[in-house]
């Protein structure tokens, strides 16, 4: 079964140049039955990655561009009056797909965000008197553009917490960009071939759920989350070269949902690596993804010129692996 996972990864890599982090995030979300928040500039193959994943799984893909005038019904669906039948009929929204790309989620107002996040959590949508289950597997990949914050609606921490992971997407390397030129500038790209079925995804999820996590690793995960709440002993170098206490930059630490997310992600990574037991490397590799959007940083982070990821990396490094 892990051979099929390798096939899926290879199929995605055939279409998407570089961006291994995005591909791995998508696969981990699939295995962990969760959703991904991607932050990065436009044009980094986020849409292509989602579309390719859906195609490789014979699943359905939908993209929703979030705008300030979007309504909840534009996402979940609505009831329309059918004059010929003289009755109301339900039209399901674009959220009914296996892989949904919610592009620039912070451009829509809070009620639209809430509608999406509620559907993500409940995995069902209520339209009028009736509830509709969302398809399984169901993965939402939401993007945020960090460069352009005018007219945006920041996601509250409580809603961000519902994403299994947040991944920062960076620019490709010059070598990768050359490969992008070779692959996309000359001819039409080859469509991604289907390498697995949706049933395979459900089987992989069961396998991921059975991946063993040792007691030492469980304690390590709890320590990693706890340090975000009591980071007095962690020092971070500020722009002025002053050593700051990490706790002075944090208003509140990660929730217990972060510990669960760490476990889901570590299990998924172990399965991707072909193991049925997790290692400290798995936990450390996914720790920043699980914590990044669950920590409330205060204004000093900006005024001291420290990046959130540097604080998170310092906290992770302060906990010795078992």
């Amino acid at each position, binding site marked *: 079964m892990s051979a099929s996972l390798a096939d899926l990864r290879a199929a995605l890599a055939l279409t998407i140049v570089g961006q291994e982090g995005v591909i791995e995030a998508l696969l981990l979300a699939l295995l962990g039955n969760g959703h991904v928040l991607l932050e990065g500039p436009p044009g980094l193959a986020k849409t292509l990655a989602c579309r390719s994943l859906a195609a490789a799984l014979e699943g359905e893909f939908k993209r929703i561009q979030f705008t300030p005038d979007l309504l909840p019904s534009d996402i979940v669906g609505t009831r329309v009056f059918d004059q010929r039948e003289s009755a109301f009929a339900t039209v399901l929204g674009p959220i009914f797909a296996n892989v949904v790309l919610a592009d620039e989620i912070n451009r829509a107002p809070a009620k639209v965000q809430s509608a999406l996040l509620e559907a993500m959590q409940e995995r069902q949508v209520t339209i009028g008197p009736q509830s509709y289950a969302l398809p399984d597997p169901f993965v939402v990949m939401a993007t945020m553009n960090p460069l352009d914050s005018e007219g945006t609606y920041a996601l509250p921490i409580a809603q961000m917490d519902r994403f299994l992971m947040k991944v920062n997407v960076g620019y490709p390397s010059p070598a990768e960009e050359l490969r992008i030129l070779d692959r996309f500038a000359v001819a039409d790209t080859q469509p991604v071939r289907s390498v697995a079925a949706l049933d395979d995804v459900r089987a992989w999820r069961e396998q991921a759920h059975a991946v*063993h996590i*040792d007691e*030492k*690793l469980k304690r390590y995960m709890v320590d990693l989350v706890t340090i975000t709440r009591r980071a007095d002993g962690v020092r971070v170098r500020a722009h002025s070269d002053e050593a700051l206490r990490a706790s002075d930059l944090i208003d509140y630490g990660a929730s217990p949902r972060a510990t669960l997310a760490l476990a889901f992600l570590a299990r998924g990574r172990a399965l991707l690596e072909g193991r*049925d*037991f*997790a*290692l*400290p*490397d798995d936990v*450390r*590799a996914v720790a920043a993804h699980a914590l990044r959007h669950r920590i409330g940083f205060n204004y000093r982070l900006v005024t001291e010129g420290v990046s959130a990821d540097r604080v998170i990396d310092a906290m992770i490094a302060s*906990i*010795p*692996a078992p």
Partner: protein
Amino acid sequence: MAARAAAAIALAAALALAAGTAAGQSLARLTVRSFALTSDTLHPRVDEPFHLIVTLRVREREMQIANLDLPLLADVELLGDERQTVSGSGGTLYRETITVVAHRSGPLAIAPATLQATDARDGRAKEWYTNGLTIVVGGAGTSALRSGAAELLARALGVARMLVWALGIAVVVIAVVMLLRRRRRAVAAAPAPPPAPPPIVSRSRRQRLDDALLVLRAERTRAAAVAVRGAVWKMIGANDGATLGDVLRRRDSFVPETRELLIALERSAFTYDDDLQPAIQDACFALERAMETVP
């Protein structure tokens, strides 16, 4: 730590069993000349391995010594154990070197080793004890040690003074013995001198791997696997708290057999219970292969 201590106790007991014979077996007839417990240092540092040495000299020529119980090492982590028996016309010298490491600073009491045998001089079953040892483990932040440093210094000066006196007396005694031996040599050939104890040298990489293999074969448990993993990581200079990925990126880990060993030990430390024994078996094979690559 408690798990490691428990493992150390269990392993010490297992090694004691291996060194000795099953209960109820008849005791060997021995003329015990000396039976001592020493350490290569009385002031080891935290997380730095050191050696405890049990030395037994008997008059008889014995191929192996049975019913010798090692001290229970509850407060230190056992890393390995090496036995050596040298027998000749002058008798038998049995020497057991136990490699241990302490993870806490402060004084450490090591209980005596014991030997059960029939005294060849009177035919009675007896039990012999070595001396006990008190070792002071030093380490960063040992405030108690720092505060007592002046007292220790004063004691050390006193001990040094006594040693100078003892040395003087010993020189006189040795001179007299040499004189007597020369006279005796003129009459008859002198008996072969007892075999000198091998010098204590720092453990080579091969010896450490051998120790690790011994521990893992004697104690096929998760705790032993974790302890061996820690010892091998220290052997190649990896830091505590690193992950396998960090360790594999080290130059020392580029050797395929070392990589294989590190991966096998990682598996035995973290795999599920049903896979533990096969994982430990693989780790033992990997240790054997790694030993072949070490000169």
